[in-house]
C-alpha cells in the first residue's frame, strides 16, 4: 500500500493500459466492495483506476437489440431509464436491493458482477435476462455471458488488463418479463441468504415459450438452472410445471452452512423464491 497510485483516465484504452501495466492495479467503479476490502486490509492494490471519468461508461444506451449499461452507471440511475424499467423490471429491482440508497448511488451492476460474490443480488437477474458483459482489454473487446465472468467466490475469468466496461441486456420480447427476489433476515442492508431470478415469455394462449431461472447464494457462483427453465417451457406455468421447476432448482443448489444460513434453508427457500419470481414475471409478462 506504501506506493499506491490513483488514476482517473478519460478513455477505456487508457484504463486498460493502466490495468495492463500493473498486475496489482484494480478498476474502481462504485467502490462499495473495493474500498471496504482495502480498508479492512483484505486487499492491497498497487494502483487504483477510477473508470467513472470515462464518459461512455456512465451512460445507458438503448440499441435496437439491447440495452448497453456502462460499467460506471450507478444502480439507482437504472430506475431513471423508463424503457429498461418497462422491459426488465426484475433486473432494475435486483440492482436496487443492494445495500442502502447511499450504497446504490455508488454501486454498479458491473462491479456487483466482478466482485464475484455468489450472493450478488443483480447477477441472478442478469443471468435470467440472458445478459452479456463487454470485457475491455489490451487486445480490444470481447462479449461473454455474464454467468461466465465469476468462476468462484471472489474469482473471475478476467485476464490481465481486462475489465468489464459494459453490461448488455437484450431487448425484451413481446409477452416477456422478469423478476428477482431474495431472502434476508432484515428488510434492507443484508446480503442475500438465497436469491432467485427468472425471466419468462408467454404467448397469447398463456403457454410459456421461453424461460430462464437463476439462483444466488446457493453455490460458489450464481447458477443458471437450465432444467428449471426447461420444466417451464411449453407449459401453461401450471402447478405441475412449477413443481418440476422447483425440484430442478433445489437439485441444482450446492449451498454451504455459514453465518447467514443453513444448507436446508437455502435449498428449500431457493425453490420457494423461484416459484414466486416465475409467478411475478408471468403476471408482468401478461401485462406486456
Amino acid at each position: 500500500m506504501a506506493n499506491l497510485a490513483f488514476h482517473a483516465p478519460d478513455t477505456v484504452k487508457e484504463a486498460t493500459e493502466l490495468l495492463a501495466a500493473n498486475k496489482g492495479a484494480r478498476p474502481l467503479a462504485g467502490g462499495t466492495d473495493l474500498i471496504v476490502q482495502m480498508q479492512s486490509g483484505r486487499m492491497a492494490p498497487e494502483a487504483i483506476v477510477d473508470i467513472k471519468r470515462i464518459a461512455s461508461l456512465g451512460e445507458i444506451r438503448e440499441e435496437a437489440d439491447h440495452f448497453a449499461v456502462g460499467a460506471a452507471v450507478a444502480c439507482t440511475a437504472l430506475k431513471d431509464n423508463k424503457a429498461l424499467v418497462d422491459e426488465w423490471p426484475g433486473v432494475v429491482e435486483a440492482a436496487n436491493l443492494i445495500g442502502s440508497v447511499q450504497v446504490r448511488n455508488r454501486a454498479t451492476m458491473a462491479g456487483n458482477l466482478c466482485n464475484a460474490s455468489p450472493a450478488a443480488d443483480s447477477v441472478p437477474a442478469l443471468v435470467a435476462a440472458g445478459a452479456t458483459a463487454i470485457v475491455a482489454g489490451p487486445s480490444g473487446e470481447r462479449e461473454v455471458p455474464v454467468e461466465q465472468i465469476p468462476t468462484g467466490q471472489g474469482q473471475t475469468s478476467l485476464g490481465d488488463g481486462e475489465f468489464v466496461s459494459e453490461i448488455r441486456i437484450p431487448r425484451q420480447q413481446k409477452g416477456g418479463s422478469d423478476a428477482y427476489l431474495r431472502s434476508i433476515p432484515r428488510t434492507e442492508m443484508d446480503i442475500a441468504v438465497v436469491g432467485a431470478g427468472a425471466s419468462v415469455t408467454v404467448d397469447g394462449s398463456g403457454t410459456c415459450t421461453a424461460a430462464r431461472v437463476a439462483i444466488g447464494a446457493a453455490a460458489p457462483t450464481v447458477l443458471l438452472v437450465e432444467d428449471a427453465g426447461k420444466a417451464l417451457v411449453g407449459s401453461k406455468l401450471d402447478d405441475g410445471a412449477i413443481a418440476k421447476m422447483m425440484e430442478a432448482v433445489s437439485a441444482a443448489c450446492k449451498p454451504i452452512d455459514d453465518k447467514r444460513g443453513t444448507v436446508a434453508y437455502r435449498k428449500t427457500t431457493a425453490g420457494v423464491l423461484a416459484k414466486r419470481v416465475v409467478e411475478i414475471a408471468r403476471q408482468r409478462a401478461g401485462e406486456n
Partner: protein
Amino acid sequence: MSRIHVTTTVNGDAREYLCSPNQTLLDALRDELGMTGSKEGCGSGDCGACTVVLDGEMVCSCLVLAGEAEGRRVDTIEGVAEGSDLHPVQQKFLENAALQCGFCTPGFIVASKALLEKNPNPTETEVRYWLAGNLCRCTGYDKIVRAVMDAAAELRQERTAA
C-alpha cells in the same frame, strides 16, 4: 506514499486538500478539512453516519476515495443550516426529540433532506426504506420517522405558500 492534490467544492466553498490515494472522503473531511460533523460508525457503508451528498446524490463518504472528489460538489451536515437558520428537517428533529445520543443524527439529517428534495410527500414506508442505510440504536426510529414526515409537511406548506 505520494499525496494527491484535490480541488473540490464543499458546501459551496472552493476547498483544496492533500490526501493519500487510499484515504476516504470521510477522512479528508474530518482530518484534512476539520469538518467532524460527518461521523464514522463503521467504515464499511453499513451505518450511514458519514452520509454526505456527492454531486446531488447521497453516499457514504467512507466508501468514496478522497481523490474521487476532484472537481465534484460535496454537501455535508455543516452546510444544511443556512447560517443560524436551521433547515426544517433539523428543526423537526429537535421538536420531535428524534435524537438521543445524537451521533447518528448528522447522517440521518443529510439523508432525510436528500429524500425530501426527491420526494416531497413520502409515505411512512418510503421514509423507513430510504433511511434503512442509517443505523440508530437509541430511538427505535419512531421519532425520527415522525420528524421526517413533519418536515415534509412543513416544506410542502412553504412551497404552496411561496
